[in-house]
């Protein structure tokens, strides 16, 4: 066992939480938790000396005292009801699954949705099969933190040869009167051979003054020929920390269409790690971030081309206002056998504020010769001529700025195929454009 002084000090009552977790779970998950905890304690909270955390300072976490929530009651029920659509909703409040708010009907044929606890018992095979592909000793610190503490979560499994027509919406809400919370949302998505599904994961908070730390981890495991449309949207409280990771494992000929939207949180860090572990895979990684005032957003993506004939396509756009900071780090690895790889990456930043800061680092590491890889990054302001033109048409400058910014955003929002997802995104973006008024 871990000696008391080696506990994670920013979590209140860490030991009792630990003990609670040790209770009745199968031994493999206990071992996983233990190894992950050791890994996190070994890494500690990263500092800016760590190349992966060069531009994002998370040392403030050291000063926090966070509690793990015991109650999953929502204070802003009306607002939530407005936010939820007719899709299959799975609602978590403060990391607790709330059955009453979630979809109660019979799920579609071939679709299994289970709580993380049930999944650990029933779907051990699938979960373990994927998790053992990752080296526990090389886990990133915040992946390890989640794995060591995550107790509740969701498991979505789509059987082979099925297409799920309805959208699955996983909602994580933080709502509290009490002190700062720590949540570890856990999501595991498995698509069987030749199946298809659309999933959107949102992290929201209706009280923009609430301070908490959300540390989500999502694992996606795509079997051969599977197609997943997966979006993650985040509109956390403006005092929250959101440090999340999405890991995607793709087998032969599978396709992943991902989108990541970040509008909230004081500090956002999203790691998206994709492993293309079979020939003919395709990945789309699109993203949008819109930050204002003292917000900080950091997107780290990595695409590991391990087999030939795969394609990946990446476009991240950002709007910065006020004193906001944005970081983008995109990595593309092409292994020696991954010939005929086609990989594209672009990061575009629109700077509206006067005191913004952008650090972008698109990287290519290529060990195969017959490949086509490109990347690009731009940082700029709105075109003066375009603004002038709109003004000559009697459109006030503010309105013109909003129109042009909308154009910048819509370009990427329109790449999301599902209109229901687009609606969710647009509703989350409303405050961004309101702030420009």
């Amino acid at each position, binding site marked *: 066992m871990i000696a008391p002084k080696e506990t994670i000090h920013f979590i209140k009552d860490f030991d009792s939480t630990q003990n609670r977790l040790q209770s009745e779970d199968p031994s493999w998950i206990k071992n996983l938790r233990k190894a992950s905890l050791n890994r996190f304690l070994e890494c500690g909270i990263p500092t800016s000396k760590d190349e992966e955390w060069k*531009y994002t300072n998370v040392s403030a976490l050291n000063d926090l005292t966070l509690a793990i929530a015991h109650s999953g009651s929502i204070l802003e029920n009306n607002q939530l009801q407005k936010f939820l659509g007719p899709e299959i909703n799975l609602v978590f409040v403060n990391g607790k699954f709330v059955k009453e708010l979630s979809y109660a009907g019979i799920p579609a044929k071939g679709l299994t949705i289970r709580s993380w606890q049930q999944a650990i018992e029933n779907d051990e095979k699938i979960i373990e099969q994927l998790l053992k592909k990752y080296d526990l000793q090389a886990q990133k610190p915040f992946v390890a933190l989640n794995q060591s503490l995550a107790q509740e979560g969701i498991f979505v499994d789509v059987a082979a040869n099925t297409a799920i027509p309805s959208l699955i919406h996983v909602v994580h809400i933080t709502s509290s009167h009490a002190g700062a919370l720590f949540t570890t949302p856990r999501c595991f998505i498995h698509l069987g051979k030749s199946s298809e599904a659309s999933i959107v994961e949102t992290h929201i908070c209706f009280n923009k003054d609430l301070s908490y730390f959300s540390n989500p981890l999502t694992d996606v495991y795509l079997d051969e020929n599977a197609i997943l449309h997966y979006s993650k949207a985040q509109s956390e409280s403006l005092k929250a920390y959101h440090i999340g990771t999405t890991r995607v494992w793709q087998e032969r000929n599978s396709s992943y269409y991902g989108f990541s939207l970040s509008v909230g949180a004081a500090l956002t860090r999203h790691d998206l790690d994709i492993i293309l572990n079979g020939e003919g895979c395709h990945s789309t990684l699109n993203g949008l971030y819109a930050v204002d005032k003292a917000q900080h957003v950091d997107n780290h993506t990595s695409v590991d081309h391990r087999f030939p004939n795969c394609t990946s396509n990446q476009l991240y756009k950002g709007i*910065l206002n006020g004193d906001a900071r944005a970081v983008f780090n995109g990595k593309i690895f092409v292994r*020696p056998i991954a*010939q005929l790889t086609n990989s594209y990456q672009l990061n575009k930043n629109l*700077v*509206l*504020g*006067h*005191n*913004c*800061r*952008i*650090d*972008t*680092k*698109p*990287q*290519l*590491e*290529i*060990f*195969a*010769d*017959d*490949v*086509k*890889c*490109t*990347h*690009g*990054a*731009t*940082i*700029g*302001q709105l075109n003066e001529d375009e603004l002038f033109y709109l003004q000559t048409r009697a459109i006030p400058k503010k309105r013109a700025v909003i129109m042009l910014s909308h154009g910048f955003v819509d370009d990427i929002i329109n790449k999301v195929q599902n209109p229901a997802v687009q609606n969710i995104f647009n509703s989350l973006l409303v405050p961004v454009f309101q702030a420009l008024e």
Partner: protein
Amino acid sequence: MVKASEEKLLNEKTIEENSLSRRDYKYGFVTDIETERIPNGLNEDIIALIAEKKNEPQWMLEWRLKAYRHWTKMKEPHWPNFHYDPIDYQALSYYTSPKWKKDQQPKNLDEVDPELLKTFERLGIPLTEQKRLSGVAVDAVFDSVSVGTTHQSELEKVGVIFCSVSEAVRSHPELIKKYLGSVVPYTDNFFAALNSAVFSDGSFCYIPKGVRCPLDLSTYFRINAAETGQFERTLIIAEEGSYVSYLEGCTAPMREQNQLHAAVVELVALDNAEIKYSTVQNWYAGDKQGIGGIYNFVTKRGKCLGHHSKISWTQVEAGSAITWKYPSVILQGDDSIGKFYSVALTNNRMRADTGTKMIHIGKNTKSTIISKGISTDESNNNYRGLVKVLPSANNARNFSQCDSMLVGNKCSANTFPYIEVKNSTATLEHEASTSKINADQIFYLQSRGLDLEGAISLIINGFCKEVFKELPLEFAVEAVKLLEMKLEGSVG
């Protein structure tokens, strides 16, 4: 003259290598010349000895010692994308010079050992009066000392000072005190500190106000002795409204041990001045198995101190076992311009981690980066660059483009661009691509009667055109030939 036995050895080697369908490194010969070298090792006494050999004033020695003391506190960095065996800094000799007759450095070229002059002639750098390259003034550096500088009197007429840095320490101490270490302080990095402590010769150029330097200035660096390192130091100062074009070339013999080359180059451009710095780097790169070759760990940096000043770096990196350098520009003056053009070719087991840093400080500063990397065989080619816009740099503008070409399936090409923007009015564009030589283009050229090598050579030439056109004519021709020679046999 090269001794007959050595000549033979060299020829044998050349034939052998040629039979392996690769042209040899033609500058790999050793000049057999009596040398004077100080004992291996590095400590304060050695530094005092170097200063004594070079007849340096006390303040220079103190400056060296300060750097040395700082260096002893530093750790060798290991962040680049390659590994190399640890360097034993105590096993090197830090000062090697040809033994002069009458025990003092010759005052002019006529007194120089003819064998030395022949060496440079063989390298294509004739120093003697009749054969001098017209339009280029050359400072020839052999191991740790400058052998001679041509066209000095011609330059003096317009007020340009062009001499070895050791001479400048003696004759122009006020300029050296003012500018040496002002761009690359000895605290900058491990190798810069080492260089500051032990630097031997290099060139010093001073272009006075309003003068457009009538000749291209050039320094040719040659490492000859074994178990030495070369630690040259170059300082170029362009006063208000002046212009200079400076060229640098370098070669070394073929040896099985790795040799260290840790130079520091500092450029200072004042108001409206322009410095154009071109390098064709062709140090010995090691053999096919990656044995031997030069470790080229160089700190090059320019400072656009005045407004409307301009510094441009053009480099063709075709040699060295390991190249690890980032010619940078600090854009301090308003409206200043920094440019970086680079072609880096790696073959066999060469490793290159090169790129640039553009630090925008002044208003309306502009920078352009064009980098072309070609990797063949089992080599590893990295572009690493930083574009940093500080809060004061309103309306900064940057355009970067780095393209890599892979020839063969055992090589690798990586790009690590860092873009850090702290000013909202900046506009930056960065693009990079990595690809294979287009098969259709090769096929087309072959259908027109070119052989495979010719076709590839032509395509690569086109790929690098943007950079070559920035080079002075003689250098551009040399660079094209160099690439052809290096690529020979590496494809097909």
